[in-house]
């Protein structure tokens, strides 16, 4: 049907103006919202205070219900365990025997490892634990995979810190409130984590696919070097994520791509451990400007911005007359 020529609601001037102003506000609002969106895309950390406050207000609601949901998830497991007890027992006994053999080997290797490290005068770079918190909810309807934990800036949580469970890596902090923080999960499409295979040490990049799986891309070209069941740990390359945090296990391998799933399931993890940002070169001494000795697997990132004074000193030592060429802050 052709639309009517006028949209006048009647003869009342007041009603006519009201309708008109309503549309003006709506169109202006859409323009404003698009501008806000552009700001959010350019600077995802913008409106931090507002978003943090919303996070703080809403997290207690999710926290309260979490126990109930856990009860039902766990009781489902308990029932299925009851039915498959015999076959599971058999399988577990075999696994236990295999695990005990490997444990003895691992102890021997650990001892040897310590001895070699002492010879090389390497110390373990230890990333400190910031806090431990419960995971209370996750994004349900959005294309992003974000979870909420019940710890915020009052517990020392800062944007960028890695979050792990005892089983493995969960993600990293992208947004903080005072009592709550949002975690970008490993499976989010914007999450990239440098990992390496435990079996052969081949480095790779684990990228989320948004549907609960990860895409493992080897850094070197050629035949796909990974097999089903390969376990990946973080390599520590590039900082942020410390080395040797269990990350993913390969579930499917094709010629082009390697599909993995994260080892830690945020839905099952009791607690999330927030760790300090891993900064290998900031912790290392920088007195002579010579790169500190490191093992061949670890590639050092460029010096991070916070160490501005040290970086300038090193550059001044290397380049004649270089001054105030500090790296731009993030």
């Amino acid at each position: 049907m052709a639309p009517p020529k006028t949209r006048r609601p009647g003869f009342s001037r007041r009603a006519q103006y009201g309708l008109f102003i309503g549309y003006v506000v709506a169109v202006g609002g859409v323009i404003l919202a698009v501008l806000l969106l552009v700001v959010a895309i350019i600077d995802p950390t913008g409106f931090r205070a507002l978003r943090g406050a919303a996070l703080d207000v809403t997290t207690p609601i999710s926290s309260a219900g979490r126990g109930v949901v856990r009860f039902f998830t766990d009781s489902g497991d308990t029932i299925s365990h009851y039915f498959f007890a015999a076959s599971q027992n058999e399988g577990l006994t075999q696994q236990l025997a295999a695990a005990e053999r490997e444990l003895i080997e691992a102890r021997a290797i650990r001892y040897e490892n310590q001895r070699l490290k002492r010879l090389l005068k390497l110390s373990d770079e230890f990333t400190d634990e910031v806090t431990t918190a419960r995971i209370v909810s996750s994004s349900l309807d959005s294309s992003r995979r974000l979870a909420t934990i019940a710890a915020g800036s009052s517990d020392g949580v800062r944007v960028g810190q890695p979050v792990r469970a005892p089983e493995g890596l969960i993600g990293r902090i992208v947004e903080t409130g005072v009592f709550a923080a949002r975690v970008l999960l490993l499976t989010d499409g914007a999450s990239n984590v440098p990992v390496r295979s435990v079996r052969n040490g081949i480095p790779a990049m684990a990228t989320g696919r948004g549907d609960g799986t990860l895409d493992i891309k080897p850094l070197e070209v050629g035949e796909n070097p990974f097999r089903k069941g390969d376990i990946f740990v973080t390599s520590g390359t590039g900082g942020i994520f410390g080395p040797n945090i269990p990350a993913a296990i390969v579930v499917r391998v094709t010629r082009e791509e390697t599909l993995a799933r994260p080892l830690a399931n945020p839905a099952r993890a009791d607690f999330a451990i927030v760790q300090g940002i891993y900064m290998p070169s900031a912790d290392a001494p920088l007195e002579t400007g010579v790169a500190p000795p490191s093992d061949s697997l670890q590639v050092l990132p460029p010096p991070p911005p916070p160490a501005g004074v040290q970086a300038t000193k090193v550059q001044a030592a290397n380049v004649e007359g270089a001054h105030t060429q500090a790296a731009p802050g993030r």
Partner: protein
Amino acid sequence: MSRIAFNSAAVRRKHLRREYVPVVSTILACLLSLLPIIVSSPVIPDFGFLMLIAWRLLRPEMWAPALALPLGLFNDLVGGHPIGQSMAIWTSLFIIFDIMDSRVLFRDYWMDWLIAAFAITGYVFADWFIGTLMGNSAGFPVMLPQLGASILAFPIVARFVLALDRWRLAR
């Protein structure tokens, strides 16, 4: 002869119910995204959005298009979307619905579902597109389960909204 109300308090209460049930029910539906469930892929529909379009399709004259702005801001803050996403999509959708209402002679249940299906598809696509602008590399097929679930959930939400509307306007 039955009377509509016996005293001024009852009149006030019924007025509040008539005025605010749609907005409050939409806000509560937005709050459903706080459910303490952790899912690894987007499968659960955005109930706030479904509630919004169900009310809008049922009562076209009730809401001015600008009302979608504050509701969208609330949904963005609660759902963890980038601020402005729901504000922009919801309000422009309301304007599109107004244009559509001036052209379409009649709507029935199936037409409503079809219109809602288009609106949901647009919404899910826009959500995914804004996500890609913000660095999400996941492809659109990831969103298909949520798209299907949302379209199938719309009749249920519409039925619920209809029941609420009857209660709202009941004497």
